[in-house]
């Protein structure tokens, strides 16, 4: 089937305005390898990113279940833990080294592999060509490389779990000296080498992907698709790519200096260190704070790299399922632009207690709190889009509304943490854990789930099971609040993050029941995600078949393609665009596709 599509695509290409498209004429019949493995079709690459991301989500999520076992039941033993973890859980009790390794790997994997590659890798690849009206990405080959760099990064990270000294265990931020000195801890040896190799590969993957996304959005839009007619998903994915392309290289330079400190005896980050068993080190004059600056210059934009795609998809899904135009389209773009700019100017709010000059700190407080303005604009726009809408509560819509809820709850605590004075008390406590898990972790997962439920029919030509979707949503949203809400109280009471056992601390003993409760809910929520995965993989093969090309009554271009689009997306010419993506309920019409010319009796947008 794909070969006919490819043929059509070549006959149609000559009349297109983007004449640069040049596919090799000899590659019509696709083999298993070229279709499913080294595919250059953006839709297949998106699925590869999604399923690889799912693998990492399960592994990273399972790690959190394991360390929650330690936190919730510090005195109990679980013999089965020794069966799966071996010497890392002698006698059924997770060792401190294993605990730190689990926390570190959980963070790295979830932030980078799941919520960066799994989220924007999937949806930027899938939606950008389909929604801007392009046959494929600007460079399909680079796109394929992007996935395989990510995949290799994953293999390297996975292998670090199996080395004798264990994976890196110094926290996902990999601060020196723990990350720079092999003698500092077991995880700082081979585990850290593999961590840094994996992350370097990941940065390359992100850059290759990001370059492509930017070039595709700016250069390959179909006729009539001006920038202000783009769906908000594309705007969000565009800003995400810009943030990634500008901030990942800085992280990379931080890593390079780290590699030199680790392997070539330089002193960028190291000074006056005495290691137990190894003695005093010769390194002098280095500054560990320098690494933190370089890390958080990426680290903070990274938060928006994770969040913006979810925001974009939520905007699209809310509007489609409320059967109303998005409220404040230009304000949405403007606020995303403001967020993208501010993302680069607030990194030091992660470093208020590093001895940062308090005057400098106050500037970063101001800039940090400024982010509340565009964030609030977005929230009000989402709420006013819902207001008096004709809402269809599909699972995608529920997850989108759940995203808005979580973004509000998590965003409000950001205003607390952005104050350098409050941060003295709250820094490195469970309050921070609660804040960023809600606003960035769970909220973005909700955006991702919304996107999967909404675009699954486009991906596989079948629907996900609705009932399982509702079960998935309600348990996950209740669970998310039950897990992270109590952590605010623990944090306000001063309970620090990253401790192995709180039951030995007089001040935190009071929370042992609460910790057990959190751990129990975490296990239930994790099991529910397995339910979702079962739904996902079952529905790929056995789900209810899609009968119409546009199941949600949506305006955007991806729904004008055939139910199962081949490589090249549209069998004939790429449709022309005449209007923005949000003409829902206009002049009494339920929806008007972007490809419909503006009628004579119609008010022009």
């Amino acid at each position, binding site marked *: 089937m794909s070969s006919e599509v490819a043929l059509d695509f070549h006959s149609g290409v000559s009349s297109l305005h983007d004449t640069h498209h040049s596919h090799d004429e000899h590659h019509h019949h696709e083999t298993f390898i070229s279709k499913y493995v080294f595919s250059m079709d953006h839709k297949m690459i998106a699925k590869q990113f999604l399923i690889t991301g799912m693998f990492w989500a399960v592994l990273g999520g399972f790690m959190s279940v394991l360390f929650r076992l330690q936190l919730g039941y510090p005195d109990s033993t679980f013999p089965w833990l020794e069966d799966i973890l071996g010497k890392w859980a002698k006698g059924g009790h997770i060792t401190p080294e294993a605990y730190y390794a689990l926390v570190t790997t959980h963070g790295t994997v979830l932030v980078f592999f799941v919520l960066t590659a799994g989220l924007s890798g999937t949806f930027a690849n899938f939606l950008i060509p389909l929604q801007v009206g392009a046959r494929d990405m600007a460079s399909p080959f680079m796109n394929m490389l992007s996935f395989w760099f990510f995949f290799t990064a994953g293999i390297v990270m996975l292998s670090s779990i199996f080395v004798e000294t264990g994976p890196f265990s110094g926290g996902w931020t990999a601060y020196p000296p723990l990350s720079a000195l092999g003698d500092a801890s077991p995880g700082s040896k081979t585990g850290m080498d593999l961590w840094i190799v994996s992350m370097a590969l990941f940065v390359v993957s992100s850059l290759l992907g990001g370059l492509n996304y930017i070039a595709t959005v700016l250069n390959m839009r179909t006729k009539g698709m001006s920038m202000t007619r783009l769906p908000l998903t594309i705007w969000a994915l565009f800003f995400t790519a810009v943030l990634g392309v500008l901030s990942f290289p800085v992280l990379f*330079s931080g890593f390079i200096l780290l590699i030199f400190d680790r392997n070539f005896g330089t002193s960028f980050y190291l000074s006056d260190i005495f290691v137990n068993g190894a003695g005093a080190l010769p390194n002098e004059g280095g500054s560990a704070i320098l690494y933190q600056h370089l890390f958080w210059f990426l680290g903070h934009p990274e938060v928006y790299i994770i969040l913006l795609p979810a925001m974009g998809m939520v905007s699209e899904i809310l509007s489609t399922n409320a059967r109303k135009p998005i409220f404040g389209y230009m304000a949405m773009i403007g606020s995303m632009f403001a967020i993208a700019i501010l993302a680069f100017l607030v990194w030091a709010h992660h470093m208020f207690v590093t001895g940062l000059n308090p005057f400098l700190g106050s500037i970063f407080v101001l800039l940090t709190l400024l982010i509340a303005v565009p964030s609030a604009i977005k929230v009000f726009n989402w709420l006013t889009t819902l207001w008096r809408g004709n809402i269809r509560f599909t699972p995608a819509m529920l997850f989108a509304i759940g995203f808005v809820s979580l973004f509000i709850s998590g965003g409000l605590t950001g205003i607390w943490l952005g104050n350098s004075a409050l941060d003295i008390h709250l820094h490195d406590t469970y309050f921070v854990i609660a804040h960023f898990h809600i606003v960035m972790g769970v909220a973005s997962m909700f955006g991702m789930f919304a996107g999967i439920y909404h675009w699954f029919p486009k991906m596989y030509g079948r629907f996900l099971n609705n009932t399982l979707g509702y079960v998935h949503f309600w348990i996950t949203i209740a669970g998310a609040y039950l897990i992270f809400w109590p952590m605010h109280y623990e944090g306000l009471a001063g309970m620090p993050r990253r401790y192995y056992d709180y039951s030995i601390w007089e001040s935190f003993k009071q929370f042992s029941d609460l910790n057990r409760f959190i751990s129990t809910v975490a296990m239930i929520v994790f099991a529910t995600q397995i339910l979702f995965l079962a739904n996902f993989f079952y529905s790929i093969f056995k789900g209810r078949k899609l009968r119409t090309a546009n199941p949600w009554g949506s305006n955007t271009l991806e729904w004008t393609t055939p139910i199962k689009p081949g490589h090249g997306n549209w069998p004939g010419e790429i449709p022309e665009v005449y209007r923005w993506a949000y003409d829902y309920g206009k002049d009494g019409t339920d929806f008007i596709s972007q490809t419909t010319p503006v009628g004579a009796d119609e008010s022009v947008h």
Partner: protein
Amino acid sequence: MVLVKSSQADGRIHPQKFVLWVAMGSIVMMFAGLTSAYIVKKSQANWLEYSLPLVFWYSTIAIITSSITINMALKAFKAREMRQYRTLITVTSLLGLLFMGLQISGFANLEARNIPLFGSKSNSATSFLGVITILHMLHVLGGVIALLVIFIRAYVSKIKNYSSLPIEIISTYWHFVDFLWIYLFIFFNWLR
């Protein structure tokens, strides 16, 4: 990729050229990160003051010359003077390699003056010079490899290729690494 046009009818920039510009922005960010780290580090204690080896002046001349030769190569390609074009990209590649060789001899000069770049006796001031310069050399090497690819293609390919896009992209990149070095050279000499 044989059908690729170098400039589009509607005057929009070619996507691959655009990708290059974004990539160059990305590379700039990496060096901006490193040089700002350098500035931060410099204001702290234990910073070694030393004079740069003279040979960096020669390497600067070499890379500026190579920018001129690649520009001439591009002009030769567009005029379909293929023999001249091949000579010029060969000269450009050799100048690129010469540049790298001169940089390495600069490092050797520092080592000889007992100012090690790396290792436990090194100072961050010279380590920074080493890391930044080596990273820049790798970018030059990337350009040399790209030139090598189109050089081989010019000989091997039986199909005549009239698209000047590859050489245009490489020459833009080549000028970019040239400017990047000039920036670094000024930075190391006078801004530090």
